[in-house]
Structures are given as C-alpha cells and as structure tokens.
C-alpha cells in the first residue's frame, strides 16, 4: 500500500515516502534507515514527505526518532516537501517538531545539508 524508497546520493540518504503508511511500515522504515546510516556512514538523511496525505502523531514520532538516532550517528536529518494542509494539521494536533530540520524541496534540503543557502 505504501512505497518507500531509500537511495544514496553522494553521502546523503534520500528517502521518499508515498501512500498509506501503517504503523508497522513506519517502524520498519526507522529500523532500516538507522542501520543504513550506520553502514553507509552517511552525513545526512533527507526525508521527502511530499507524497503523504497525512502525518499523524505516530508518524511524527517516527520522524523525530529517525532524526534523533541519526544525530547519534553524526548525520543531520531534513524533512522536505511537507504539504500546507499537513503542516496546519500537525500544528493543530500540538506537534511542532522543534529541532527537526525542514526544507521546501529536495534541492533546498540538499543545500541545507551542505550548509549553504542556494544563491538565486
């Protein structure tokens, strides 16, 4: 029902999540990602959530935990492409996800991980 893919771009793991995610899918993703970060010694994790209709508290917690575990393994996490209606709902739900890196697009997220704002 859901399609998640993890690809390695230079030293960044790019994760795309699409469709309906069960809680088990989310936990499996977290485990897979954390071991990938460890084995690949990636410097950053980019999670593209633009394909998600909703982010509830379980998935928000998963995102938070992925970032926390990656930080322990010296990798930064950036969540990109969150839809406006999803962001409004998360805030209303009471989830502000402080400390989680965010960016508008995958390209912006890459720049953020590389520590530079994209010149325009």
């Amino acid at each position, binding site marked *: 029902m859901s399609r998640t893919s993890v690809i390695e771009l230079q030293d960044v793991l790019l994760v795309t999540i699409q469709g309906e995610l069960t809680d088990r899918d989310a936990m499996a993703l977290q485990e897979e990602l954390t071991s990938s970060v460890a084995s690949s010694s990636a410097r950053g994790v980019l999670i593209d959530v633009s394909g998600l209709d909703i982010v509830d508290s379980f998935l928000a917690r998963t995102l938070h935990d992925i970032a926390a575990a990656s930080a322990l393994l010296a990798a930064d996490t950036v969540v990109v*492409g969150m*839809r406006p209606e*999803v*962001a*409004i709902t998360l805030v209303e739900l009471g989830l502000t996800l402080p400390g989680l890196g965010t960016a*508008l697009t995958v390209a912006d997220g890459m720049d953020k991980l590389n520590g530079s704002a*994209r010149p325009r």
Partner: protein
Amino acid sequence: MLCPKFARRIANPQRDDLCRAISPKGAMEDNRMTAGSDPTIRDSVTAFLKDHRQDIERVWASTALFTARRPADAAEECSELLTGIVEVIVSGGEENAAATGFASVRPVLTSLAARSAGGPSGSDRPDVTVLKGPLLRLWHDRAPAETAYRGDLLLSNVLNTLRIALLEIELSAGADTILAQRAQLTELSTPVIKLWDGILAIPLIGTLDSTRGQTATESLLEQIVAQHARVAILDITGVTAVDTLVAQHLLKTAVAARLMGAECIISGIRPQIAQTMVQLGIDLGEVATRATLADAFARGLSIIGMKVSNDERNAG
C-alpha cells in the same frame, strides 16, 4: 452497545421527535383537522375565487402593494397570486408556507421582495396583508351568511401564510447577501504579495476572526509552495488588536511555515500592541519579529543570501 448510557448518547431519540414536530407535513395534517375539515366551505371558497376572478384582481391591483407597478404588470402579478392561492386552498395547504401553491407564486413574491428598498426591517417593506381587506369585503358581499365566518377564517389563513412565505423569501435574500459579502471580504482582505524571488508578505488588516485568520494562513502556505518561497512575512501593522487568540494563530502559522521549510517573520508590531502582548503574557517563542515591514524584508533578503548596498557610496 456497551450499556444503556452509551445507546442513549449515540441514538439520540429526541432528535427524531423534534424533526417530526417541525416538519411541514405535520403542519398540513393539523390544519385539515381545523378550518378545512368541512369540504363544502373549501369548495364554496374555491368557487367564489374562480367566479369573481376579475373583481378580485381589480381590487388587488389598486392596493398599495401594486401602486408602483405598471397596470399590465400589476394585473399579471395579481392573476398569478390568485391562481396560486386557489391551488393552495384546493390542496388544503393554507397553513403551510411550503405548499406547492405558495411555491408557484414564488416568482411574484421574489419580485415584491426585490422592490422593497429598506430590507426586512425597512418601513417600506411590501405588505401582502393589504390584500386581505378588499378580498374579505368581496367574499362577504357574495357569500351566504351561514358560511361567511368559516370562509373568513380560511381566506385569512391563506393570506397570513402568504405573508410568511414572503417573509421567508426576504430573509433568505438578506442571508444570501451577507454570505456573499463575507466571502468577498475574506478574499479581499488576504492578498499574498511577492516582495522578491523567494520572499512573500501577507499584510493583515482589521480584525482577525478565526475564519479570516484561517483563510490568510491557508493562502500564505499555499503560496509558499506555489512560489517556492523561503521567507514568509506576516505583517500586522493594520491589525487593530492582538489578543491571545490572534497571537496563537500567528504563532501556529509561523510553525506550520517552518514545518514546510520556510521561515516566518512577524512584522509591524506597534509599540502599544507590543505592550499589550507583554501584559497578556504572550510569547511568540522562537518566531522572528521585526518592528516594520522594511526591517522584516531586510532580514528576509539576508536569509536568502542577498545583500543590499548603496551604489553611489560603493562607486565613490
């Protein structure tokens, strides 16, 4: 179901009783029990209305209701009204404003309502009760004495309900206008402006109620995606008052923008508003704030990596 308490909560049986009590069908059945229980009076009133059609239309057309109309239009509208009223009486729906006969005179009533300049509370509202006197006088002249009183009752009922039907049309016209104006106001008051490639501003003006606040937030966040903006400025220079709810709304908007990957700056906080906010204990947390839109714009430029410099001084 777990226990009776649960069942009561969910099924809410009182609701069904209430619906039945206010349904038009119930009202119609009731009135058949009273004025209309005698079919002969219904028949004789119907016969009277049909036989004296021209007389009735003539006296109606000369009432105050139609003074402003051209004689041909007045005659036509009176004729339509009478046709509808006959239909109502034949069907026994004289106490039900939703009866088909009243529905068929809707166009005439709408045109009457549209002619009233003062709205539902104005003194020059159209009043269909002026039709009652002339009609009853004609009925008394023609009707046999023993049925006159019950005919009065029936005709009065029809005209009273006609008045309610007209009032309903006037009220719904007023409500439609209010809804349309509110929608226009909501759209008008929330323009999202592009200040620079990647920098948006939304000037908030007046009173921020929850509908306007939500509309503003939604259009700002949508434009962040559409215009790929990294900075969004909420300018509250034109906001009359910032209470806890408004502050909370601004804060939520800023956090939602950050979740999407854009940075939000709140600008235009006037001194007295800053003081009120402090007194109310409002804390905007980590959201960047600036006194003026210009300051916020400068901050926005630096976020996207732009520098503003004075050409002349550099050249000199």
